[in-house]
């Protein structure tokens, strides 16, 4: 079926280069002024707008503000504090950027970020995001179904999993440059092929109708809304199809606490804390706790992927 090409100009045409460079200088200044990690410099920066279409897969819950989403992140490549990515990710260079696609495909190759931005229909996907740390947000992602990209590479029949890898660039990622290695780099993640091809699974290139802020995994990241947030790997440089279950960073770090599947499940607690409820970010000091839903509320769409599996064992 021919894909209708929306008239989306490449991001390089939307934003003059000096504007991008000024933004970086501004970010560096803002990082210096930011108070105790509480204030992010991100809210003030201008990012190119994206042309998008709505999706029936979006939730109608009210999205978190861009300030919340870009100011409260886990991206250990930039530090372990929630405000660290906003402070330090400004220095990340996101152009040129390509994703290498290989492994068990007949058609290996690379994907350029400009190709993703201009040759696909970008969809608004307003998803709940549930962190393994028991907080949650509603994020209006902009992205494309991962399946629409992967299908171009002619996947071989023996492929059962998809492995993802984040950029390694210590010069721009202080967490990787530190002699104290908080995690083994590169950050890696994996999905079963059917999870990767599920219509809910997207590659996100934007949020709130704009290009992704660096701290949210620019220029392109995975979003798998029924799994804990750490499965949604950021700043992807490699996608490979494999026959064996690929390694996943948090699972390597502590296999007892973080499983390969890591589906949101209120019935399976983290060994150290409860997963029964969550704090929805953005409600201020007195935000009410809400009950966590199986598969983060996406059970109707994805529960069948796990038919017959003991989810307490395959957590």
């Amino acid at each position: 079926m021919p894909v209708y090409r929306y008239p989306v100009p490449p991001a390089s045409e939307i934003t003059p280069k000096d504007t991008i460079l000024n933004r970086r200088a501004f970010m560096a200044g803002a990082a210096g002024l930011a108070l105790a990690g509480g204030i992010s410099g991100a809210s003030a920066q201008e990012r190119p707008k994206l042309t998008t279409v709505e999706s029936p897969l979006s939730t109608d819950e009210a999205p978190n503000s861009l300030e919340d989403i870009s100011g409260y992140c886990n991206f250990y490549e930039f530090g372990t504090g929630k405000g660290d990515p906003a402070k330090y990710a400004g220095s990340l260079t996101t152009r040129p950027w390509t994703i290498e696609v290989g492994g068990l495909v007949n058609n290996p190759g690379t994907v350029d970020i400009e190709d993703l931005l201009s040759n696909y229909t970008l969809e608004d996907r307003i998803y709940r995001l549930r962190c393994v740390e028991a907080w949650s947000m509603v994020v209006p992602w902009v992205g494309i179904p991962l399946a629409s990209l992967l299908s171009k590479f002619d996947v071989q029949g023996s492929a059962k999993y998809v492995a993802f890898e984040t950029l390694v660039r210590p010069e721009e990622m202080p967490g990787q440059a530190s002699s104290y290695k908080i995690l083994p780099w590169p950050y890696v993640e994996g999905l079963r092929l059917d999870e990767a091809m599920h219509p809910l699974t997207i590659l996100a290139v934007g949020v709130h109708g704009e290009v992704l802020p660096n701290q949210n995994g620019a220029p392109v990241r995975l979003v798998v809304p029924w799994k804990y947030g750490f499965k949604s790997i950021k700043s992807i440089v490699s996608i490979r199809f494999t026959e064996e279950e690929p390694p996943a960073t948090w699972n390597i770090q502590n296999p007892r606490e973080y499983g390969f599947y890591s589906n949101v499940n209120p019935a399976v607690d983290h060994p150290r804390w409860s997963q029964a409820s969550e704090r929805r970010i953005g409600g201020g000091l007195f935000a009410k706790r809400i009950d966590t839903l199986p598969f983060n509320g996406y059970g109707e769409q994805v529960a069948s992927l796990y038919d017959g599996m003991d989810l307490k064992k395959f957590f």
Partner: protein
Amino acid sequence: MAQSKAWTALPSWTVYLLGLLPAAFYVVAVFANALGPDPAKALEHALGEWALRFLIAGLAITPLMRFARINLVKYRRAIGLTAFLYVVLHLLVYLVLDLQFDWGAIGKDIIKRPYITIGMAAFALLVPLAVTSNNASIRRFGAAGWRKLHRLVYPAVLLGAVHYLMLVKAWPPEPIVYLLIAVALLAVRLVKPARRARAA
């Protein structure tokens, strides 16, 4: 050699004044909406960290006296009570803002989550110490008995530091550093005092 008077020139109530500055900062930060998108968690963690800092400061008084000959004992009660204040505020934020008086969840946390169990145990150990941090109690227990009771602060600080280490993901340096400092300050207490050169 007597220490310089400068070390103890300030009255001990200045410790309370300085000790309350972080709390005051967080009150302002709450109203200025400057604690980020998850203010309850930020407050909970900051208050817990300040509690640990003051507990560790209190533990440092004796080694300073023994090894650096700096006597700051007059400030220790104020440091200890300030630490307890932060422990109480930290616990209140957990009960009121984090778990929101969900007593079922709180009970489960205490029984099933070792880091909560440990934190609560540390709090329980500190309560009698705060209650007896006054001259009347020292007279009632006698100096030796009172001192013995107040050794409960040793396990309390260790439990507090372990409580912090157990709630983080992976092995970030901060909680490890706090635990190492606490262990070091307790370990130096095992060093036998050198034989006095002069007769007392």
